[in-house]
């Protein structure tokens, strides 16, 4: 037999493991760590939602659903998209319920990419985009945003990255890891470019519910953009349902149906119990979302101002639950900062370079943590910063 390793696909072998993994391993087993390293809500799924899932089990709903998801759920999603974001999708043909936004991203890219097609990824970005593009046979083209611009992509940057092979732009607003949210005007400028170069836009709107200062604009709601938008969303973040693994795609019929083909062969359908939970979340969970959002906003205000006072300058993120402060004042690289902070002060954050080169000099801190822990984290970070003034 050959060496086992030599059986692996070239693509997979060359894939880098997520940098987050290393920090997870480093922090695992340490006691008393305050974690600002988590990309998920600290709230438990609202009880009414959990209770609906329990009821579905009691009633014996334990079989597959339609491949695209429970019709009732798709109808509720269509209603939600219409009421919250002003875009209408047909529950019959334009909505597919998926196993998290993660699977939605995967099948979107696989449905549209041919080998060598280029995909523009705005950096710093969620860790999955680049590997998923590669796995789908595409070529990721990373465009770096700058902290001077609040990590917003400028139209000319975007335009410069476009080639004849470009097929799609991945946008994520509010963004993981920067928390940056693009305004309607800024999305408009991107829409014009998409139109001019005839590109698709994959809009990851998983954090849409967590927009703190300004009204949220869905990319699909802009002008004629619905026909060139693949909108990805889900229940993980806004509804505090990460473990349920439930997301959805809204896209023009041809694209949705192509994704559905992959989904039906690879996944059959999303978990039934989770679909019943999601249905309840949309029906009755909105006030819980509002309460959680209020709480995140207060913590954001507290946390970001406190970081700024410590000299870890940070723009005010418009959404999601991440602060992305600069740690340059300490003279450390982002990996050094994160590792030392964890070992010396037991505060876990994620180094910014994991989200792309332009994240270097920053760390991602999630403020989805109780106020008490945030206050303690600030104390520890303050102590750390005093120990590490720039050489």
């Amino acid at each position, binding site marked *: 037999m050959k060496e086992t390793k030599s059986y692996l696909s070239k693509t997979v072998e060359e894939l880098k493991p997520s940098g987050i993994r290393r920090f997870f391993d480093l*922090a695992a087993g340490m006691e008393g760590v305050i*974690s600002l390293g*988590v990309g998920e809500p600290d709230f438990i799924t609202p009880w009414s939602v959990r209770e609906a899932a329990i009821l579905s089990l009691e009633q014996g709903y334990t079989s597959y659903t339609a491949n695209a998801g429970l019709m009732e759920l798709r109808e509720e999603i269509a209603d939600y998209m219409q009421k919250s974001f002003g875009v209408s999708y047909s529950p019959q043909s334009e909505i597919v319920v998926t196993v998290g936004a993660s699977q939605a991203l995967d099948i979107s890219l696989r449905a549209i990419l041919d080998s060598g097609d280029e995909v523009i990824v705005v950096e710093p970005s969620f860790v999955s985009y680049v590997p998923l593009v590669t796995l789908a046979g595409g070529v990721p083209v990373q465009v770096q945003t700058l902290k001077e611009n609040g990590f917003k992509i400028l139209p000319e940057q975007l335009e410069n990255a476009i080639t004849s092979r470009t097929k799609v732009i991945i946008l994520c607003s509010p963004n993981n890891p920067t928390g940056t949210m693009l305004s309607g005007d800024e999305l408009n400028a991107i829409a014009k470019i998409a139109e001019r170069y005839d590109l698709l836009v994959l809009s990851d709107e998983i954090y849409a519910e967590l927009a703190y200062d300004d009204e949220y604009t869905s990319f699909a709601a802009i002008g004629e953009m619905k026909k060139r938008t693949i909108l990805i969303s889900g229940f993980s973040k806004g509804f505090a349902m990460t473990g349920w693994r439930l997301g959805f795609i809204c896209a023009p019929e041809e694209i949705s149906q192509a994704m559905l083909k992959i989904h039906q062969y690879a996944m059959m359908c999303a978990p039934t119990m989770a679909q019943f939970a999601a249905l309840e979340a949309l029906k009755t969970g909105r006030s819980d979302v509002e309460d959680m959002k209020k709480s995140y906003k207060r913590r954001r*205000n*507290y946390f970001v*101002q406190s970081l700024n006072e410590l000299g870890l300058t940070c723009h005010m993120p418009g959404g999601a639950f991440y602060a992305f402060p600069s740690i340059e004042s300490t003279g450390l690289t982002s990996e050094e900062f994160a590792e030392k902070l964890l070992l010396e002060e037991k505060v876990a954050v994620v180094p910014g370079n994991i989200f792309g080169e332009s994240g270097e000099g920053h760390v991602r801190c999630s403020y989805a943590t109780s*106020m008490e822990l945030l206050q303690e984290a600030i104390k520890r970070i303050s102590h750390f910063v005093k120990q590490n003034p720039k050489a």
Partner: protein
Amino acid sequence: MKLTEKQIEVLEILENNSARIPVEDIAKMAQLSVAETETTLDKLEEMKVLVRFNSVIDWSKVDGHEGVTAMIDVKVAPKRGVGFDEVAQRIYRFKEVRSVYLMSGAYDLSVIIEGRSMNEVARFVSEKLSTLDSVLSTTTHFILKKYKHDGTIFEQNEDDKRIVVSP
């Protein structure tokens, strides 16, 4: 569990006076200056909108401080002109009384009493409450265990179940 005199004293102060959060932190959370926050707090207090800073304490955990809470359904004969208000007032002035509500339905006033012992509560009901002129009858329910109080769940395992670092 056994607490020191000092610790219990601190708990009592917290229970009656303040939440732990510093004004500076309130200021940041509300995106106000500290001065503004202080004036706002003062103003709210002055308007009696902010009635009290309260802490919720699970006294059942503290030896010798368990206490007894009872909810008493009271039927009263309302008086002409003053209705239920006069008798309610006579009841709520007792320091043992934590809350008084005028109710619709089977009885008129719901009175919540806290005492150090069952005896103390019993004495209050028989000697003070039921002897009031307009009180027709009382039904006393002792609280056996507090699961949730004023929105706070007691005895909940609220450990963070998340892994330390995640995407």
